[in-house]
């Protein structure tokens, strides 16, 4: 690209560009990469004075343990969480969101028990609610799962970078993911509360609309749902059921999901008089498969030890004593196994399903964000 073309693209800095030695900046970036303090992308160099700006966002002591992994004999402190948020490119004012996210992962329970070392290859997923979305520029509208928004990109990245740098969960070593998921780079969205016909997610779990909160989940991946073909709520909901209950994701007796409705889809249900709870109930009642369908993919029995699905003739297969009688098998254990939020632009019939690794009926891990000290 020529200098002229750069200028046309708006890629040339003006008089306000900082006067620094680019070679020194690059040397710092390469130093961090050589140390392995990275997810593969360049990280932001962190000095003590820059770190102090992050630590000033919380009243918690820098040495306080945020989350422990006893099986690795490793602990995440407030200071380590702040270093990694800074490395990830967060601005200091994002740090209260990062800390609340870690609190949610601690309460959710799978992360301290080594789920991120598993061959399954799960990723962190964050949903942010409340006024902080606007305050720090979190995107909840168009391209919500895509790139282009610093707060979304770096808050999600801070979690994964911390897993790598603080807990040592590096690929090929303590992270044994078979394939992983692109969500491991970053997966953080805000709910589009303004274009939703329903109450925000955090208020479903006891918080006030004026509170800000982070909901954290461990997820296997993301599925795009394109459904512009109908405004009949039953048809649309059954289309979601087909994707939520695909056999590839059905490793246990039942499954779970986070259904991220585009506003247009949410309004299809609302116009028909359906509440969020009505939609969850419909999904639950229609989430079933015939026993023959399960048998055709070799998932008609359970492992004696792990409770994972496997073929009936597998040496570890239990008899069907823990499967209810009948020709059909329920694939959600309760309406609450599907968490519903609204996000994206209000411009098309597009939604997403985030394939969570639980909870299956228990409430999701929601943490109120503690604002920075005045």
């Amino acid at each position, binding site marked *: 690209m020529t200098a002229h073309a750069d200028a046309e693209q708006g890629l040339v800095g003006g008089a306000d560009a900082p006067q620094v030695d680019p070679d020194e900046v690059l040397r710092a970036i390469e130093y961090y990469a050589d140390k392995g303090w990275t997810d593969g992308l360049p990280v932001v160099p962190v000095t003590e004075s820059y770190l102090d700006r992050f630590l000033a966002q919380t009243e918690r002591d820098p040495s306080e343990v945020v989350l422990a992994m006893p099986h*690795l*004999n*490793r602990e995440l402190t407030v200071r380590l969480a702040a270093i990694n948020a800074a490395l990830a490119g967060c601005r200091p004012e994002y740090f209260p969101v990062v800390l609340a996210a870690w609190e949610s992962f601690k309460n959710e329970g799978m992360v301290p028990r080594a789920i991120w070392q598993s061959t399954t290859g799960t990723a962190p997923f964050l949903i942010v609610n409340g006024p902080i979305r606007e305050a720090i520029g979190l995107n909840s509208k168009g391209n919500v799962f895509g790139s282009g928004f610093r707060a979304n990109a770096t808050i999600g990245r801070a979690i994964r970078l911390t897993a790598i740098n603080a807990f*040592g969960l590096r690929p090929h070593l*303590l992270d044994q993911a078979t394939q992983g998921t692109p969500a491991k780079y970053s997966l953080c969205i805000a709910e589009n509360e303004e274009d939703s016909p329903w109450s925000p997610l955090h208020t479903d779990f006891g918080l006030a609309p004026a509170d800000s909160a982070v909901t954290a989940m461990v997820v296997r991946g993301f599925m795009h749902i394109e459904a512009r073909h109908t405004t009949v709520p039953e048809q649309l909901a059954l289309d979601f059921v087909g994707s939520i209950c695909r056999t590839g994701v059905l490793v246990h007796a039942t499954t779970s999901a986070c259904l991220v409705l585009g506003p247009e889809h949410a309004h299809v249900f609302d116009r028909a008089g359906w509440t969020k709870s009505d939609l969850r109930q419909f999904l639950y009642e229609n989430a079933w498969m015939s026993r023959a369908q399960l048998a055709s993919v070799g998932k008609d029995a359970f492992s004696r030890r792990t409770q994972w699905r*496997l073929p009936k003739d597998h*040496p570890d297969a239990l008899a069907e004593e823990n499967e209810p009688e009948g020709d059909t098998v329920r694939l959600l254990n309760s309406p609450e196994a599907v968490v519903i939020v609204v996000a994206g632009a209000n411009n098309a019939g597009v939604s997403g399903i985030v394939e969570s690794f639980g909870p299956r009926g228990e409430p999701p891990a929601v943490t109120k964000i503690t604002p920075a000290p005045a």
Partner: protein
Amino acid sequence: MAGVYGFPGFEFVTVPHPVASLSEEQIRTRVAAALPEVTRILGVE
């Protein structure tokens, strides 16, 4: 994991993938192949 616990030289036996999808007979074959290594590490004469 051995390094995390302070035993970087900890000796262990590896069994080739796959395992979960094997039949009972195939599992027995894997065990038979691994057993001499297990007994060697445990110092069984």
